[in-house]
């Protein structure tokens, strides 16, 4: 395969992936906005407390906690779900790239991309193995 045709394939795959990414960001933004409206309607008159760091409670900190908490329909939970979707979009992009490089039979880049994906998943698991 010549260099130029490889670049062309790369670009076509990337355009598709980039469009998916934008859709992911839009979806995430919509979920965040929905959660934001619920949050503001319910708690808009309370006083903000961000001056002192206390950290978020368990159900807003972990992937499983956020997903489970969504059913409760709390504004903060829904916002956090949207943010999780947002964090997941670049991860999905890397996962797609693994497939794209595999289709191009580019073994070196399948390995490189898998390393990046592994680091991302390690981080999403909270930095614990």
């Amino acid at each position, binding site marked *: 395969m010549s260099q*130029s045709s490889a670049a062309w394939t790369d670009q076509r795959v990337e355009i598709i992936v980039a469009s998916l990414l934008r859709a992911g960001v839009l979806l995430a933004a919509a979920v965040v906005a929905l959660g934001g409206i619920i949050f503001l309607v319910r708690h808009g008159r309370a006083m903000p407390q961000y001056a002192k760091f206390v*950290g978020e409670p368990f159900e807003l900190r972990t992937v499983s906690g956020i997903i489970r908490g969504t059913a409760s329909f709390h504004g903060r939970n829904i916002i956090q779900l949207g943010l999780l979707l947002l964090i997941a*979009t*670049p991860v999905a992009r890397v996962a797609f790239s693994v497939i794209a490089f595999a289709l191009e039979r580019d073994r070196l880049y399948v390995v490189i991309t898998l390393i990046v994906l592994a680091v*991302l998943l390690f981080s999403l698991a909270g*930095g614990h193995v």
Partner: protein
Amino acid sequence: MNIFEHTLLIGLGSLGAGFLGALTGLGGGIVITPLLTILFGVDIRYAIGASLVSVIATSSGAAAAYVKEGFTNIRIGMFLEIATTAGAVVGASVASRLPASTISVIFGIVLLFSAYASTRPAPKTSSDGGANRLAGRLKLDSTYPTLQGIQRYHVRGVPAGFSLMFVAGTLSGLLGIGSGALKVIAMDQAMRIPFKVSTTTSNFMIGVTAAASAGIYLQRGYIDPGLAMPVMLGVALGALLGARVLARTRTALLRVVFGIVVAVLAFEMIYHGITGRL
């Protein structure tokens, strides 16, 4: 000021930051943390968490436009992401062990550097040094569209670029920024990649790098939904508007003005950090 007013003001501030960030090419994320800590008195850890989220939104949202132009080099981006994501994990881990005052001072210094880097004019296309063995084996050389048609370019300085990318990733994870300025310098100066390819590939990498530290920040409880919501929506919308008007604006003066604003914020961050008023 209740939560509703607080959210509205932060949203407007983030909108402005995203707008100016897109116009100047400096990125909106870099001024979010100073804005939240200095103006709104938010703890720097919450501020960094919210900023990081907005960085992912702008990078991923802008990706489609950049890729279509044909400048982004996916292989360079993916290879260097090994360094940036590993750095981001290290940076995010270090962040939880450093006192807020130290992070504030480091933030100020990086901010000053970014302001300086952004006011420099875009360098002329780097001279092509010919084929390089390591870059060749990694298949980093490629082509890009110019006014004179499709042009080939060769990549060099792979170890230096890779190391700089690790530093960029560490700063991104430590401070919740995109580190776009340093990424561009690593590619443009150290690896001799054409400027247009460097900037668009840098944008491609920023979202993935930020995601690598966002997971850790989320687990540490740094990402507060009430705060991240107006920041993410504001910056993303601002960046979208900024990209729309970018083509019809003279950005030279704007870059200088924004550069000065960033420099003032940088000195505030350093001062606040040293005097411990955070």
